[in-house]
């Protein structure tokens, strides 16, 4: 469950684009933190479910109304964080009890204002805007509970985002005073700026017993893998400035360095790079002549020229994010928001959410020592890769049958014949199919509720089990139901009037399906075309050089697609098909192509399937209204899928020796019809 949830939540964007509101950022932040925890194992056992979220309470108060709590001098201090803590040693899973709703519950302590004995607060800022928003986001989520006895995870309302504003000892005492503290078990603290001068620890210095830490700026020595979560350092600029989205592509500068607090040694290196490579590099610094204040943080200068920050970040392909006194840099958030590819140089830094994110795909991580080689390293990255990094989001097809397997011939296939009342032709089809060596079972889906199927004695005698399944309604989707009676992987869907297919053709089709078990492998091929005049898709059943669909009037496919068709078909397509009594085959082609990204395979040259007397195109298809309806289906489905998943190919599969000068009797599949 975890994998799917995780991917779902980060599907569209790799990094939360902190664009619209704080809240989105914090909801994402919190979910990723939680998912991070889940991914690390402990919560694997709680499949998530959704409960209606709580509504906002109407009593509006000020933070200054929060009760005052005085910390006695002698109040106990928790132990320093235990570096050996892991989920199985420091986390109490029993508190998370396997509740019937299968859900982790998170409790937030009510806000209190902690002061020491003389009344000085433990923090110079108190509750910050960011921490307040974070807590609101949690309280809005499905994980929230206000019942302390049901909670699995506890979140103190003591704001420790920025260690600089904290009085370490008193904060620790305040934590220990929390009613459920219990050595910090199952408590989660959020911190973005850890450490302080002169040595700048990479984790929060506040003694915190066994509490979990979601921290920005962990190093590999302070990060407890599978226990802590590394988070980005939030940059308030992202809400202040609304940057337009930039398309991937070349930028004015190749490398941009925008940080103002770069160590002298590194600035010298950067300047050397600038000398060597000139205009490709833009090396910005503080503006010395501007007056201090809010304006100055939004300006950068190079040789007296003033640039707007963070807008300038959008003008460069790569943006340098060097460590400062701390490993985590707010610049990283700015850079990502601007769509610039970060070049991260911070040895030993645990990148945010590194356990779930693939940073190598979205950034370049270079050892600090290699700073002098930065230009060469970045130049060696192909343009297309840079563009992919800029894009930050990846559309991808994850085929459910991704393993390249060629299943054994032995279990054979199950033929599912859809019929209404054409008994004579049905029996001919059954007799013909029963000659196919790999046929394992015949299922007749009897779609006529007004008439009973013929008596058993009247059916053709076949060597394999034959079963008639009577349906409750005359629906086309019945043919794609994942009947328990289908015990093979391979299904041959066939109409009751497809009498022309020879047993060689069917057996060959099955052999081809074995080599393409994740595709539709069928006989009648069709094509979709873009009608430029009408500005929409058109269905084509003429003899064309191309194929993008195979009709399921005669096609092999994996039983899994029955399951997908019945239970996972997007939108209202399934009902639409049943209501129109048409296009179930087109819907199946859309479904399979969309999930696998692959084209169907047309097998053998056969074009006629029904009766020899018919013209080039099969009976039903001649009907003009039918063609219009089919085109309509394509347009309808394309809009439901929000894309055109069908793939056009120019090939079909024939037996290796088809039409070769070779004795027919030595060919495996001699009887391949050419009409």
């Amino acid at each position, binding site marked *: 469950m*975890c994998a799917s949830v995780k991917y779902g939540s980060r599907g569209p964007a790799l990094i939360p684009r902190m664009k619209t509101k704080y809240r989105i950022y914090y909801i994402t932040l919190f979910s990723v933190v939680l998912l991070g925890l889940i991914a690390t194992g402990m919560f694997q056992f709680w499949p998530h479910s959704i409960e209606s979220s709580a509504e906002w309470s109407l009593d509006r108060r000020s933070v200054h109304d929060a009760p005052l709590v005085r910390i006695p001098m002698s109040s106990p201090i928790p132990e320093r964080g235990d570096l050996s803590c892991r989920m199985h040693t420091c986390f109490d899973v029993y508190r998370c009890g396997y509740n019937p709703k299968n859900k982790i519950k998170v409790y937030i302590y009510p806000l209190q204002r902690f002061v020491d004995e003389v009344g000085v607060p433990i923090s110079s800022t108190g509750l910050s805007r960011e921490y307040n928003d974070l807590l*609101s986001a949690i309280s809005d989520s499905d994980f929230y509970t206000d*019942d302390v006895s049901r909670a699995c995870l506890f979140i103190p309302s003591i704001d420790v985002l920025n260690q600089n504003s904290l009085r370490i000892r008193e904060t620790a005492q305040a934590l220990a005073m929390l009613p459920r503290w219990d050595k910090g078990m199952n408590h989660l603290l959020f911190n973005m700026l850890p450490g302080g001068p002169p040595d700048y620890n990479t984790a929060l210095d506040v003694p915190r017993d066994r509490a979990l830490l979601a921290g920005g700026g962990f190093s590999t020595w302070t990060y407890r893998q599978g226990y802590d979560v590394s988070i980005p350092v939030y940059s308030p600029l992202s809400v202040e400035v609304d940057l337009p989205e930039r398309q991937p592509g070349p930028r004015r500068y190749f490398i941009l360095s925008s940080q103002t607090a770069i160590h002298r040694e590194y600035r010298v290196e950067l300047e050397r790079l600038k000398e060597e490579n000139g205009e490709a590099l833009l090396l910005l610094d503080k503006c010395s002549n501007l007056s201090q204040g809010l304006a100055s943080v939004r300006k950068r200068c190079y040789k007296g020229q003033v640039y707007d920050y963070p807008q300038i970040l959008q003008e460069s392909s790569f943006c340098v994010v060097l460590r400062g006194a701390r490993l985590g840099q707010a610049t990283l958030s700015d850079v990502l928001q601007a769509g610039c590819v970060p070049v991260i140089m911070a040895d030993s830094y645990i990148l945010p959410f590194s356990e779930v994110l693939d940073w190598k795909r979205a950034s370049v991580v270079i050892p600090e020592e290699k700073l002098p080689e930065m230009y060469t390293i970045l130049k060696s990255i192909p343009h297309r890769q840079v563009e992919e990094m800029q894009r930050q989001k990846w559309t991808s097809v994850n085929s459910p049958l991704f393993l390249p397997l060629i299943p054994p011939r032995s279990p054979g296939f199950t033929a599912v014949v859809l019929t209404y009342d054409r008994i004579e032709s049905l029996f001919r089809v059954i007799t013909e199919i029963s000659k196919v060596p790999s046929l394992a079972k015949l299922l007749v889906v009897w779609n006529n509720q007004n008439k009973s199927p013929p008596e058993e004695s009247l059916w053709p005698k076949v060597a394999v089990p034959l079963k008639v399944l009577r349906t409750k309604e005359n629906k086309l989707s019945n043919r794609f139901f*994942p009947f328990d009676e289908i015990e093979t992987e391979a299904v041959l869907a066939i109409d009751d009037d497809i009498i022309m297919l020879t047993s060689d053709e069917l057996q060959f089709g099955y052999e081809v399906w074995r080599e393409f078990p994740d595709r539709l492998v069928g006989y009648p091929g069709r094509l979709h075309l873009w009608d430029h005049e009408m500005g929409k898709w058109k269905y084509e059943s003429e003899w064309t050089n191309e194929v993008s669909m195979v009709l399921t009037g005669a096609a092999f496919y994996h*039983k899994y697609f029955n399951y997908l068709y019945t239970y996972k078909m997007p939108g209202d397509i399934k009902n639409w098909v049943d209501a129109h009594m048409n296009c179930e085959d087109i819907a199946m082609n859309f479904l399979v192509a969309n999930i696998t990204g692959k084209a169907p395979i047309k097998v053998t040259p056969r074009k006629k399937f029904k009766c020899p007397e018919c013209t080039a195109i099969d009976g039903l298809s001649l009907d003009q209204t039918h063609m219009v309806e089919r085109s309509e289906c394509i347009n309808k489905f394309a809009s439901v899928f929000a894309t055109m998943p069908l793939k056009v190919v120019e090939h079909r599969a024939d037996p290796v020796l088809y039409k070769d000068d070779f004795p027919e009797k030595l060919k495996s599949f001699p009887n391949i019809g050419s009409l």
Partner: protein
Amino acid sequence: MQARKKYVLLGLCMCCWLLLYYWGGLQERLLGLITHKRGEVARPWPSWLDRDLLPGYADQAELQNDGGSGDSPRQRRQSWAGIYKDSRCRMDTCFDFARCQGQSGFRVYIYPPEKGERVSESYHKILTSVVESRYYTSDPREACLFVLGIDTLDRDQLSTQFVPNVDERIRGYPLWNDGRNHVIFNLYSGTWPNYTEDLGFNVGQAILAKASLNTEHFRPGFDISIPLFSKEHPQKGGERGWLVRNTVPPRRKYLLMFKGKRYLTGIGSDTRNALHHIHNGKDIVSLTTCRHGKDWEKHKDTRCDHDNQEYERFDYQELLHNSTFCLVPRGRRLGSFRFLESLQAACIPVLLSNGWELPFSDVIQWNQAVIEGDERLLLQVPSTVRAVGIDRVLALRQRTQMLWEAYFSSVDKIVLTTLEIIKDRVYSHISRNKFMWNALPGGLLVLPEYSTHLAHYPFYYLNLGISPGQEFTAVIHATSPLVSQSQPIMKLLQVVSKSKYCSQIIILWNSEKPPPHRSKWPPMPVPLIITDGRRKTSSRFLPHAAIETEAVLSLDEDTVLLTSEIDFAFHVWRSFPERIVGYPPRSHFWDPVKKAWGYTSKWTNEYSIVLTGAAFYHRYYHHLFSHYLPSSLRVLVDRTSNCEDILMNFLVSSVTNLPPIKVAQRKQYKEMPTLQVSFCPSIESGTKTAPWVNPEHFTQRQECVSTFASWFGYMPLVHSQFRLDPVLFKDHVSVLRKRYKDLERV
């Protein structure tokens, strides 16, 4: 009277029922009061009136200045090396990168074994894998990484394979250098009763490649967790995974199974002693036995006899084949053989081994292949695995197979993965990303020196939602000197350059004569490049820098093709960019008499090879051919001037697990079915006298197939029964409607 009685009875019943209902309701309400008002809306975090007045957590200047720029980075790096040693080792502090920056790159040296040194079977295999890898060097001066000659696999003092005095011996190594740049392989550490992580000697700054690693002792980004493997684990190739089909619904006969020892005392007994609780005899089979060790009867408890009996009723192999999930609890140590066994059997592992650092956790995303449980929550395991949906079961199961085949099925793969992980750390900006490690065909077949960009590989087009490029490069292998303008190569150049998809032509000059002057070649609409192949057959698969397109059309100088044949094949290749798409097919077969693989050029109903004298494939295979395959195989190809095409087919099929694709070819008068003679080498390439009339040429090809199969450790070639033709090929329809009409001309 009767009726009245009936009514009274009914009335009484009603009363009772009402009473019960009321009383029950009351109780419920009381309960609600005592516990908590259920169903009531939870009190959320307040929306403060003064939210907008709250201060930011840090002001902009503070964030940008970041408390100054800190210490001198150079000094910091130096001081780190002093602080972060031994148990706090990281690559930055305990690894000498300078050793790997030399000309020779990433090289691994093995200390020579001392006289009379006994090395266990497994360690012997590990050393063999290193020696046969492309990273081995016999010169310690060019080595980046060192592997001990001393067997350190089994460090259990009670074991017969325990090697004493390791400490003194390694200290005698002049290059030991406190273990810097050394890798120490270990499968078993510690001994009864605690089985600690102690190896019995000082590892110092060496990288541990160890099974059953505990997260607490694991030095992240430095040590490497490897799987526990048995001494029967194959050196090469290895068995395929057991999954042959994706049945739907994916549930097997049993939901969950375990069959193994129950420890009554000692470490690991907490978990092993509880496993029998989840056994239900129906879909959950959890069998434990007390019968292990010499004096098991001493510790015997009341369950033992019954359990031992039940234990014998089920066969472990049968359970492995027929179970959806397999419990993989810790044993005395954290890792166990059953981990790899379940992985191979496509039985989704449910881990109960708290604190186990999973094998190759640096690179493998295990949550896609296993369920990580918690020993403390054993009793929840059944309901957890029951709740796993069919999509997830299918995905997890296929992933077990992918991981097994990519990283675990042989000692070679385990050792190479270990080395590649270290190599990725050493050259971190030219390394594989997580996606490469976790997508087919796996990290070992992705050589980041070729590219770090996913779109440059033939494997990821679908994942990226893109298609291969619209152009190809033709590489023509020329061996005969240019004497006349009517030579086949002239015609070929014309035909190829006429294709609208051809972007360049490279002539690989492998003739004894020097290449002719530029003016001798006909004028071309596309760039023509002549390169010197140094008369090596393998040079046709060198990753020539000049090849700029993803698709390569490999051609022999005497190949006869039509432009439309080329165009059609290229179209097909764009649908199957990870395979070889070509024209003349060949086949391999198992000869039960000779008990060896055979090769045939007969026309048959199936094929497993297409000749690369005329074939499309992705240029990355040039890179794999030249850098992934061992030089010994390329030497064989060059010495015999033969088999390069077979080797390429072996390589590609081993990567894809799929056959090549044969496409339609125009009938040529030269092609004659060779039915009469069984192993007639007549039409190797369609024309001419040269090598293939020589019967020796054909015998060589037979031998090649065997040699290659033994290097790969299995037979990677796969048969196919179809050929891809244009949709209207030989159909009874006007030729004017056919896009590839030329194909039907004789």
